[in-house]
């Protein structure tokens, strides 16, 4: 019951918001959005605590069931989605009317994205998973296309939005082909059964082919280098809510899908392809890091750093060990929290600055807006993987796991990847400090003139609460990562061995 409500509340609220007439902006839409996302947040906590199951027939002819369930793998992501959407909605309501359209459409799209993401994390049927995976596309497209940065030309917005949708659709259709092969040969689309079969009954070649299709498809969403090119433009153009949801929720659907579908159902195929995965992951770490060193747009910089961080997650997955899987899941959540914080901050700053160009000399954030300054420094510290902050554990465990991979993986290659990944960490320190130097310490602020010389209004009210909550999460899980690790521990072990708990 609670599960169904968790999915229906945001969905119905979104439909209501989209159907509302746009002309007079009333308080109704604010309350509908706030109440719906609040209820969904509470329900997500409740659902994670009680672990209910919904299992009803949906499309009988195809054997697709309306089957949703929470387990240790998805619990953290469900919580992240539910709570973060509440933050996004509160943040959006505290800001000005979005440019490019009515607020009700904007909020409706946010809630639709939430519905799709929750359904993806909860789905226990492979084809249902695919359908849920697609739900987020159109609302996200609208968010980028219509509510995106209005400082750039219309074509640029169209290009960014179109690239996002087309890349993702290509990925999900390839994934669908993989799923259909898997389902046809295994005779069921139930993810739990597929996980228990653990690839039994598939020939090795077939398993590799299916794993290849699934990884190629989901890799676009993660994104894995070299199919990451949609991410920077989408992030740069998207409004704050879009960027936050994209980084914190949508990218997680890709890694979650790899774990839930590929690692669980075709383990030998993934094992065979893991050297490729590891290499691509490391190239992503280095590529994203190097791009960050020279990138001039702050939003785009954070987007590239996302590519690097997801590279660590991919590397952890490639190791094939229990530690690696745990590192991937932790790194996933950690990146979700950190990227959300950074995109909230940069979105606010961009709103006031008018652009996020790092070349424009501006007053030091340290002097003008100390709360933003503090939050930014913590966020950047998390970005470079400072111990004591949550992302340290994801990255450290990832390298640790890849150093001693599961039997059958090429140890030398994996260790080489670890060395390069460590270099990537150093690069991360470089670009994080570069941003801190320019924005926080105000390098060159003596030349600030015009808009750059106007002090930034500091975080206050709801926005400060949102930022504060994220800071708290970063530090708490940084000091006590076992809170997160414990949630997924048993289920991760079960998933790797194929033995149901």
């Amino acid at each position: 019951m609670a599960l169904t409500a968790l999915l229906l509340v945001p969905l119905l609220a979104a439909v209501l918001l989209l159907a509302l007439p746009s002309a007079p902006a009333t308080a109704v839409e604010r309350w509908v959005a706030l109440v719906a996302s609040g209820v969904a947040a509470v329900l997500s906590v409740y659902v994670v605590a009680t672990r209910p199951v919904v299992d009803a027939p949906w499309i009988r002819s195809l054997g697709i069931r309306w089957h949703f369930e929470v387990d240790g793998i998805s619990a953290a992501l469900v919580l992240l989605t539910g709570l973060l959407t509440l933050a996004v909605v509160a943040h959006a309501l505290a800001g000005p009317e979005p440019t490019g359209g009515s607020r009700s459409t904007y909020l409706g799209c946010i809630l639709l994205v939430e519905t799709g993401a929750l359904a993806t994390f909860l789905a226990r049927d492979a084809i249902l998973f695919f359908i849920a995976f697609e739900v987020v596309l159109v609302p996200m497209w609208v968010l980028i296309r219509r509510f995106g940065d209005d400082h750039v030309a219309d074509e640029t917005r169209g290009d960014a939005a179109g690239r996002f949708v087309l890349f993702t659709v290509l990925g999900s259709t390839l994934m669908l082909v993989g799923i259909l092969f898997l389902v046809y040969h295994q005779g069921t689309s139930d993810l739990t059964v597929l996980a228990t079969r653990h690839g039994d009954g598939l020939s090795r070649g077939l398993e590799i082919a299916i794993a290849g299709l699934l990884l190629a498809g989901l890799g676009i969403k993660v994104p894995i280098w070299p199919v990451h090119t949609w991410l920077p433009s989408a992030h740069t153009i998207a409004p704050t809510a879009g960027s936050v949801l994209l980084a914190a929720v949508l990218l997680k659907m890709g890694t979650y899908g790899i774990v839930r579908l590929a690692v669980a159902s075709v383990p030998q195929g993934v094992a065979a392809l893991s050297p490729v995965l590891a290499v691509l992951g490391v190239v992503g770490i280095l590529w994203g890091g190097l791009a960050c060193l020279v990138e001039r747009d702050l939003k785009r910089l954070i987007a590239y750093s996302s590519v690097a961080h997801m590279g660590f997650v991919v590397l952890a997955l490639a190791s094939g060990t229990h530690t690696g899987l745990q590192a991937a899941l932790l790194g996933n959540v950690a990146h979700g929290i950190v990227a959300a914080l950074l995109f909230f901050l940069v979105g606010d700053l961009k709103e006031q600055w008018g652009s996020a160009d790092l070349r424009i000399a501006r007053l030091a954030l340290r002097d003008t807006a100390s709360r933003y300054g503090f939050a930014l420094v913590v966020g950047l510290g998390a970005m470079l993987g400072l111990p004591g902050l949550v992302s340290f554990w994801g990255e450290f465990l990832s390298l640790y796991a890849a150093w001693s991979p599961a039997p059958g993986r090429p140890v030398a290659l994996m260790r080489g990847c670890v060395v390069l990944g460590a270099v990537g960490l150093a690069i991360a320190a470089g670009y994080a400090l570069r941003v801190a130097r320019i924005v926080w310490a105000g390098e060159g602020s003596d030349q600030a003139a015009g808009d750059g010389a106007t002090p930034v209004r500091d975080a206050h009210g709801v926005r400060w609460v949102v930022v504060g909550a994220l800071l708290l999460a970063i530090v708490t899980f940084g000091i006590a990562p076992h809170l997160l690790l414990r949630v997924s521990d048993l289920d991760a072990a079960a998933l790797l061995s194929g033995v149901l708990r």
Partner: protein
Amino acid sequence: MKNLTIDVVALLPALLPIGAVIVVLVVDLVTPRLRAVPWGIAAAAALGVVATAGLSLVRADSNGGGGATLCLTGQPGGGATTDRLPDLQGLPATCFWHADALGSTLQLAAGLAALVCIGLAWPRSGARMPGATQAPVEAVLLLTALSGTVVVAASRDLGTWLIALELATLPVIALVALSGRRAAVAGAVQLLVTSLVSFALLALGAALWFTATGSPFLTPDAAVSPGGGQVTYSSVTAGLISLSVVLILAGIGFKLSLVPFHAWTPTAYAGSSTAVATFLATVSKIAALAALLVVVRAVAALGAPALVAVGLLAALSMTLGNLMALRQDDVIRLLAWSTVAQAGWVVMPLVSVSTLGATSSATYLLTYVVATLVAFAVVALTVRESAASGRSLAAYEGLWHRSRWRAGALAIALTSLAGLPPGVIGLVGKVVALRPVVVEGWVWLAVIAAVNAVLGVAVYLRWLRPVVTVTRTSDQPVAATAGPGHRPAIVAVLALAAAVLVVLSIQPDLLLRLLG
């Protein structure tokens, strides 16, 4: 023929439109120049088709393999059969009409689509106008084509099948020509020429079928047991049957607008009125696929290998259709090329010559038909508001802002065609269409289909983009006006089609189970 059994109720879906044709003609004879009445009669007949096809669906459900009628019960050893039908000896029963679940569902969809077309063609005012009116003629032509569609879905012998298929095609050519615009004649001529070529191919294919099987029936029995002794070598028979199927496929390819037989599609769509274009895009396609499925299901019994030709045609159609649709600024032309692309998706499941392939193909066709109906209804409304520019993509700028319900209907239709939520039925359609390909293990075709899914999304989002954008400059020229003809009929059929689409998106199983 005293062995012939007739079940009138089963035949009603075909008899109703034919009866309505006569009624329209009589009414026109008694009180000429009526405008709304002929369409009213046609609408009643289309509703009747929906109802009676639904009834025979229910009956087929309750008594298993129902829906067959006009059956000949064979007389083993009877001397009389030698000069009649040579293959009837020993066969339990052969029916000229067999409306099973699949056939009845296609009939039902044809009736529904025709109803929407009638709504779109509804005259501006019901009042009697001075001068001639084309309404009765158009209504008669539409009903005739509808009856052809209904019959072809249930026909099981070569003669009826051929005639019904042409009956479903030829009146449409006249409808296109009657649309009155200059471009209409060009479209009609192209359509006529391609129809003739396609008929020639079909007739040849039918002749080969008869040669190979010695049977005038398009049934699995006929395909499996070549009777009459004309052909002794089974390898020759199999070859002839494949050749005949390929020829029939090519002939029907014209009607389905498969590449390379698609050239008439954009011209004919763009030349005709919106209602006729809708008819071409929906009812005609149902007729063509219904005809193809009759053959495919007959051949399926042979356990025929997957047809490379089908896969190639499907891949070509999807790719070319999508690429061309990407370049169109006229929404009717865009929909025409989208038809070409979707036709590729429709035949793709038939690479697996089996019941699974046939059902999947029909499922995909019906999702396409419903979504296309909604899109065309929105176009018809927009054309009504601004006749000059209503067909350009620019006319849809800010539609979301101006009319939320209409924009919502269009969004669901386009996302269904693209295969994205909220058009879940389109997504399920893609899943269903890919399944037989996967069963046959054709990875290359599946990957081409995946790439085309992306192209398709690009095509439909290109249309959806102006719908959701608000540009300040474009608000004035296409401001919402009640226009020269505020049309409740169009709104009604739009609401009907959109409601079907929404219900199917929430519970796709309704459609899938109808088809068995």
